[in-house]
């Protein structure tokens, strides 16, 4: 085969050419638009499939419900769409495309800012809008009037000695491209700000019962997640105690039971050794400390229960967190008593804030989320709690595999039902007492660094956007030729919109009218009228 030399040369150049071609494709408007839409499409699945970063428990439920699909979805990153490789790829390409487009445009803009308005085209009638009239004013007066009517445009007046005409060149609307550039730069600022926030940020959730404290270390959290560049050693050393958790509900009326107020009164110390201070955390009113803010995101009941075993020893005496299953605050909880003798004990059951009996034998229900008639209902197991095997256990789940349910003398499951202050004897000795009712606060501790960056970015971006949408760049030319021998001056006007608009002809008519009024009578008030 005898390939022509030229072709071989071209193929030698190919990699570079190809790269350049790729770059041009990537930074073209069409690609940017495509990537933008692709990003939108890629964001969709995350709003239908539960996301790890948003709701871990929903993911677990989903995985259990879809045993075949879930592993595939998981491998493809569908449970963390917004940090998946494919989402990041689109996002990064978009960013490169954006920067690749902005930088050259900035250079062009910088040059345009220094440039003078271009010279007039020869043939005005070819312009999208033009007009002509005659006036007794001199060429000089025409140019002065033109300047006044054009206002803040950039204007040059040039005599053309050859043709004996004077032309005025005006350009306005530079703000449009500036707004456009500002807007696009601000998108980059937002993306960078968000990236910084998620790389160095952290977020943790913790449940704290009234009277208990929290110090900001990793081990104290129930859940914790942080950006890859965050070091848990850097957790700021604040601490606080929840003195009181207030929860109020609508006592009556059509919205009876709807939440009215949630508030956690805390005493906090920002740095070790400092004097404690008081603060009220409620929704929309976080405690903002150096290096993190504390938000109230939920609350619930934590009855204090005291368990005595068969030997008469108090083996458990603590507040037990019962997690609410819904807005009625019917809650579920578990008690593990590893120190009980002769056998370990476990309890599992529910808490009702305002219990009413539903009749013979039927289980009670709660009719109001406030604690009007609190009731703890439990069943009991004995045996091995399985705590010694080193397998981490959830405090909210009782592992019943190695335990035996405790029955009453009729062989039915033994039911415990307690109001505050009540004690119930247990089969086989010992007792359980509902000592008092406390509440718990579910708090979120979070820090997102550089948060003002995206905020400033979007805010400035919107201003830039408004400028780029509202400002109308236009070039206007006025050409005047002095009449010979006392005949009137001939004035020609033409205009060109950088962004074509249909209104131009009407506007040039207005402009001509104003222009002539300005020439006929130079007092501006009247000429405008």
């Amino acid at each position, binding site marked *: 085969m005898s390939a022509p030399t030229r072709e071989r040369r071209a193929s030698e150049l190919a990699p570079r050419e190809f790269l350049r071609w790729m770059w041009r494709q990537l930074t073209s*408007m069409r690609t940017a638009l495509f990537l*933008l*839409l692709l990003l939108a499409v890629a964001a969709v699945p995350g709003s239908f499939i539960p996301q790890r970063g948003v709701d871990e428990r929903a993911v677990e439920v989903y995985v259990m419900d879809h045993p075949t699909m879930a592993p595939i979805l998981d491998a493809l990153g569908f449970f963390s769409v917004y940090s998946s490789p494919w989402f990041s790829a689109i996002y990064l390409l978009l960013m490169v495309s954006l920067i690749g487009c902005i930088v050259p445009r900035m250079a062009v803009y910088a040059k345009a800012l220094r440039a003078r308005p271009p010279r007039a085209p020869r043939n005005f009638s070819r312009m999208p809008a033009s007009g002509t009239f005659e006036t007794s004013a001199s060429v000089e007066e025409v140019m002065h009037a033109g300047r006044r009517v054009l206002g803040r445009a950039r204007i040059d007046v040039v005599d053309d000695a050859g043709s004996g005409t004077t032309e005025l060149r005006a350009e306005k609307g530079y703000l449009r491209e500036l707004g456009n550039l500002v807007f696009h730069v601000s998108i980059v600022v937002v993306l960078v700000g968000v990236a910084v926030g998620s790389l160095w940020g952290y977020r943790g959730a913790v449940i704290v019962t009234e009277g208990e404290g929290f110090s900001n270390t990793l081990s104290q959290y129930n859940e914790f997640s942080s950006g890859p560049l965050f070091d848990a050693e850097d957790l700021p050393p604040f601490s606080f105690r929840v003195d009181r958790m207030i929860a109020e509900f609508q006592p009556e009326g059509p919205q009876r039971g709807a939440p009215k107020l949630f508030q956690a009164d805390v005493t906090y110390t920002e740095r070790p050794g400092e004097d404690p201070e008081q603060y009220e955390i409620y*929704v929309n009113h976080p405690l903002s400390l150096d290096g993190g803010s504390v938000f109230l995101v939920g609350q619930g009941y934590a009855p204090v229960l005291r368990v005595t075993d068969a030997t008469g020893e108090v083996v458990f005496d603590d507040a037990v967190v019962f997690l609410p299953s819904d807005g009625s605050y019917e809650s579920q909880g578990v008690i593990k008593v590893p120190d009980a003798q002769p056998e370990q004990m476990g309890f599992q059951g529910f808490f009702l804030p305002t219990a009413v009996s539903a009749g013979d034998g039927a289980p009670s229900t709660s009719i109001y989320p406030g604690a009007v008639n609190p009731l703890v209902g439990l069943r009991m197991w004995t045996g091995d709690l399985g705590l010694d095997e080193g397998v981490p256990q959830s405090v909210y789940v009782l592992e019943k595999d190695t335990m035996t349910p405790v029955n009453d003398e009729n062989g039915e499951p033994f039911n415990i039902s307690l109001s505050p202050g009540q004690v119930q004897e247990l089969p086989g000795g010992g007792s359980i007492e509902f000592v008092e009712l406390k509440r718990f606060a579910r708090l979120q501790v979070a820090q997102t660094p550089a948060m003002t960056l995206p*905020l400033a970015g979007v805010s400035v971006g919107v201003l830039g956007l408004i400028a780029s949408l509202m400002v109308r760049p236009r070039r206007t030319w006025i050409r005047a030729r002095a009449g010979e021998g006392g005949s009137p001056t001939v004035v020609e006007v033409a205009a060109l919109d950088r962004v074509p608009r249909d209104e131009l002809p009407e506007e040039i008519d207005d402009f001509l009218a104003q222009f002539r009024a300005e020439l006929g009578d130079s007092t501006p008030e009247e000429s405008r009228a």
Partner: protein
Amino acid sequence: MSLEQYAQFSNYAMVSATCVLALAFLAHVAEWALARKVEASERALVGADGQDITPPVDAPADPVTERLSRVGVLLTGLAAAILVASVIARGLAAERVPWGNMYEFGLAGTMIALVVYLVLVRTNGVQWLGGIVSGFGLVVLGMSISTYVPAGPLVPALHSYWLVIHVAAVMLAGGLFLVGAAASVLYLIRSRSEERGTVGPVLRRFPASAVMDKIAYRVNAAAFPLWTFGSLIAGPIWAHYAWGRYWGWDPKEVWAFITWVVYAGYLHARATAGWKGRRAALFCLIGFATFLFSYYGVNLFGSGLHSYAK
């Protein structure tokens, strides 16, 4: 009046406004139906001259259809006025801003959309959108009834002045999006007929497709900064105070973002790629669909942090 009376009044006014809006819709439907009939009779008079099907747009309009159009606009104005009363009474009954749950979003959103439309009728003469706007408002009001809850105080998370700012901006943007989408639908229908030269009597009641295209663009261009402010500035600020993070890919946030992206694509296409016409109109309609989903659909799905706004 007592709180209960205010609430009662608000409900009656809401139902009345729905009925009046239904009449407005009927007036516009009659307008179209009659346009067809009038055309047919004119044809019969003139004779079967199939050629001349696009008389000048400014041809003197038929007085009856013209009157029906005006009746439609007037009834829409009346419906909007009653709806304003209903929304204000609702606010007085609940002693707060009247947009704290799905029912109220429906009411206040329709109210704002109608007011935006009526303002644009005055300034830009867009009464030709009446049929679509009144029909759409009717659907939203009807759907709102299914999410009715009695007037009452807010859940604690909504105790924030960001509720006023965030929701008001988003609803206003939504009203404008609706007008833009309505113009785009009509644009698509009419431009097709224009291309085929089959602009019939009904379509002749609408402006030339280029005019509708321009209106759609202007309205969307005005709505977009508002949407950006409402959903991507005010929303995240509030989310920071309420939930401890400014952006968490909650479904509502995702869809607000998607809506933003699609409208951004629309503006881009219009402003730079010169995609006037069909493709821009389709973009706009997709954008409106995503807006509806972020405004309504996500709440109905019932997942995410926003869902307590039900």
